[in-house]
């Protein structure tokens, strides 16, 4: 029942907030809702619920509305419900169009994401998966930046095309199930699909997730979308929605088509490693802060994709830890990038520089986020990255070496970006730049404290995902 509540709070408050008249009232209500959901999420973590929620839904197809959680989904749900209060807060005090509608869409996205991470059958998963896309589409389309129409359309069609493959896969699996057919994951997991079928079914299922993550070369929708997206849009996309891809891949591929995974394992790992190097190299001399962060995100996600397919204990635990760490870090980075834009009117590197002169605290917090991103020890990034590289190492020294290049390349592009934004002499045009205000502190300090806190005390997350390990190493 409590899982249903997690789903319903953002859903109902999302619908309700659309009818609000006042801007501030809508924002306050939305934040309150998101914080309540976070509190309940933490309650669920502290007192794990063994039974899920189940109700009759589409009787004739034998599809139920059933929700449950395990270690993997708990990480995802925690990340989602942790970030959304900050996502909503990021809109405070800023002039935005139609605030009640915007907050309504954000909360509906949150509801759909919670649904994705709790659904226990593939059909329900798919419904939530698509449902999440719709509010995000409007958030991007209405509240996005330059060129939003064409970029949003491309984003939408791209991800929708991927989803269609997934739908086909789900229907295919549905008709494979014995008896009166079902789309329950538990039934899918028990299917003994011939290896030949698994090798092609793998890609049918994987494409949607590969696009969402994204894995090289399915990534081209991402940098322009992140660049154009509003701060809140970018925080949702990069912080949480990329994790949908990871979650989906973990849920569908490893238990259902393990032989397909085994067959394609080296290919996906190598694609992942190519992605790490490709995105990192592009990020180095990139000319725009926001797209640079997008490429850095892609580099990190690519490493996560590689680690996922190595699928040993270290890699999977590192991956799940990195889900938390990456989500928090990238959300902080996008918020910081938005502050840069607000203070200077640009995110083009050649127009930036020397912000530290007038905004030293801004620079320090920016640097902490950068250090989290380059996985300095005692930040959350290090724990995840170290374990993933350990996982890669167990499989092959070369995987670890190429994956480990992220340590060097990450430092190269991130510190260069930091220098181009923050360091250098005072530019006359930035004479009036001010340092952070209280709202910025409220958003950034908790996120940065989490980045360091999880780096020093990572153990609670591992305790949370203990259950997950066994379900995943099936591919071996």
């Amino acid at each position, binding site marked *: 029942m409590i899982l249903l509540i997690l789903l319903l709070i953002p859903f109902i408050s999302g619908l309700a907030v659309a009818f609000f008249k006042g801007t501030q009232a809508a924002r306050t209500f939305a934040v309150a809702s998101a914080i309540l959901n976070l509190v309940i999420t933490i309650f669920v973590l502290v007192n794990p619920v063994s039974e899920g929620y189940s109700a009759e839904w589409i009787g004739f197809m034998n599809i139920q509305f059933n929700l449950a959680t395990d270690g993997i989904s708990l990480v995802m749900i925690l990340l989602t419900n942790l970030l959304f209060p900050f996502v909503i807060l990021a809109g405070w005090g800023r002039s935005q169009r139609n605030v009640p509608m915007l907050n309504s869409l954000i909360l509906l996205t949150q509801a759909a994401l919670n649904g994705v991470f709790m659904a226990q059958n593939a059909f329900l998963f798919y419904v939530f998966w698509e449902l999440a896309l719709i509010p995000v589409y409007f958030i991007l389309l209405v509240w996005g930046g330059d060129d939003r129409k064409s970029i949003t359309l491309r984003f939408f069609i791209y991800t929708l095309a991927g989803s269609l493959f997934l739908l086909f896969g789900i229907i295919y699996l549905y008709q494979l199930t014995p008896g009166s057919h079902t789309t329950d994951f538990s039934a899918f997991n028990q299917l003994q699909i011939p290896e030949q079928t698994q090798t092609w079914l793998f890609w049918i299922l994987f494409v949607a997730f590969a696009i969402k993550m994204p894995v090289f070369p399915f990534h*081209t929708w991402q940098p322009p979308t992140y660049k154009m997206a509003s701060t809140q849009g970018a925080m949702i996309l990069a912080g949480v929605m990329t994790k949908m891809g990871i979650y989906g891949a973990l849920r569908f591929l490893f238990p259902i088509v393990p032989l397909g995974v085994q067959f394609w394992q080296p290919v996906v790992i190598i694609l992942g490693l190519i992605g790490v190097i490709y995105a990192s190299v592009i990020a180095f001399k990139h000319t725009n802060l926001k797209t640079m962060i997008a490429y850095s995100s892609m580099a990190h996600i690519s490493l996560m994709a590689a680690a996922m397919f190595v699928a040993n204990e270290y890699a999977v635990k590192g991956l799940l830890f990195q889900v938390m760490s990456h989500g928090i870090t990238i959300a902080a980075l996008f918020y910081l990038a938005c502050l840069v834009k607000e203070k200077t009117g640009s995110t083009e590197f050649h127009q930036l520089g020397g912000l530290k002169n007038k905004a030293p605290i801004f620079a320090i917090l920016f640097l902490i986020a950068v250090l989290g991103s380059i996985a300095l020890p005692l930040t959350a990034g290090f724990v995840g990255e170290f374990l993933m590289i350990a996982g890669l190492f167990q499989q092959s020294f070369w995987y670890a070496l190429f994956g480990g*290049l992220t340590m060097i390349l990450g430092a190269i592009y991130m510190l260069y970006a930091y220098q181009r934004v923050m360091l250098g002499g005072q530019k006359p045009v930035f004479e009036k730049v001010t340092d952070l205000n209280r709202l910025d502190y409220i958003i950034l300090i908790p996120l940065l404290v989490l980045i360091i806190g999880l780096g020093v005390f990572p153990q609670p997350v591992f305790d949370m995902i203990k259950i997950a390990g066994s379900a995943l190493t099936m591919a071996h």
Partner: protein
Amino acid sequence: MNLALLVPLLPLLGFLITGLGYKKLKHNQAGIIASMLVALSFIVSVTLFFILKSSGKDSATVTLFNWINIGSLNIPFAFLIDHLSLTMMMIVTGIGTLIHIYSIGYMHGDERVNSFFAQMNLFTFSMLLLVMGSNYLVLFIGWEGVGLCSYLLIGFWYKNPAYNYAARKAFIMNRIGDLGFILGILLLFFTFKSVTFSEVFQQAGALQTGSTTITLITLLLLVGALGKSAQIPLYTWLPDAMAGPTPVSALIHAATMVTAGIYMIARSSILYNLAPVTLEVIVVIGLATAIFAAIIGLKQNDIKKVLAYSTVSQLGYMFLALGLGAYSTAVFHVTTHAFFKALLFLGAGSVIHAMGGEQDIRKMGGLKSKLPVTYLTFLAATLAISGIPPFSGFFSKDMILSKAFEQNPMLYALALGGALITCFYMFRLLYLVFFGENRTANVHPHESPKVMTVPLMILAVLSTLGGFLNIPALLGGKLGFSSYLDSAVTSKSGEEMNHTTEMGLIALSLVLLAIVIYWAYNTFVKKAEVPAGDEVQLPAFQKAVANKFYVDELYRAVFEKPLASLSVFLFKKVESLILDPAVNNIGRGTAVLGALTRKLQRGNISFYLFAMVAGILLFIVFILII
């Protein structure tokens, strides 16, 4: 033993106080707080030294909490207190305290002095984690931590793009080493199922000497050490690191950071003893670095650059000692070097301070009388680094040289050659700065305040007498320092050298040193030669030396430029011309397909009927065939 927690916590506290209160702290408050906390940390370290001594044990482990524990991988956040870590702790906090106190005077009046002390404290904290960690991963926290702090402090004056570049260069070069290091740790973990020192070393005995695994582990760890301790080929960041305020150079070059690689290898002595191939690699790299950097030092005209190359060179000697299996000798040289190199840099700071920011030794001269304290202390350090008895450097360097002789007289000859070059460029520096006439008008050099000169004097005493910590048997000593370390590091025991030979070698080197010093005196004092200005064309070889053999230019052409071009190429060509259009073309393809199928929808009923019938027929044919 839980007292040990205070050692890193005090500087961390200092970092938090000075960091968070940086807007509130006035005048010298930050400096005083930061210095006091490091000093307290030193006092605690000394206390621990005596506690451990009286406890009769060789080591103690203090565990804070389980850092990462995922079943098969268990990494506690724990500290190991033994003779090696105590030695390093006392060096780091002891020298660190003096540098902090000196900085109060040196940084006085800088608008960001509070940030400066916060970062210095963080540096000390990181270095303490590094030397105190009881396993390779806690060591790695400190390892990367000092990398970060060097980045921050080298780029302290962030308005200057060249300094920012130097800072990034330091961090990235370190990271290159760190990748090797982390891979080494992983191989170590998968071999021994642990990263804790005591457990790893216990099991290491089971490995065969010279096996591939142990060779690979030690080589990978060595890559990390090359980056951190600025050895060929990863040394170019260290000379550029002088971009930071001078006390930072003292901290990086003497007490912290660069000694990390030597510490790590000494700590892993049991592993390295099993890998003779790696040891040979270390000998070659160490010796090459020692001589190469010394040669470059001959032609540098920036007071801090000369010292920077001398550090690279001295680190080469420490590596030579490590490679010879004389780990405790290497740590001994770390110690004496910490004394005299901190003194040299702080002395250089005092000179720069007095010269109003001038760093070019061609524009100095005659400072002997103006800065008497700085001169005398600088002289002590110069004698120490040149290896003149009874100054501290003599003892440590002589031990390295005699170990080299035991191994191979050729090694000895090369190492001695490097030592003679060292002696020459150091006396060149001394003479050019302090002797002769002042070559810049309009400056009125004045001695630095007490807060700066007192640390110089203390360091001068240490540089002079530090060698007596480890008196060799030849001089009737018992090698106290080395034998203290014996419980923590396992040095390879060579054959005892015959005392007559040893005496002969010492005599030989002393004669040669005297000749070199006279030669330098003759050139720079008697003939009062001043190195040519930058505009003068030098002969080819000299020019190459003055330009540091163009290694920076080489790295820029081979690594940096191609990476930048690749970055632009991948984005402008691959991403924008291949991958992105590919998606658009798929989109355009569907549009074309749509346009084609649209022609079928022409609203002609007879066409629809025709299509229907044709379809049914095809369907029947299809079924019949199958």
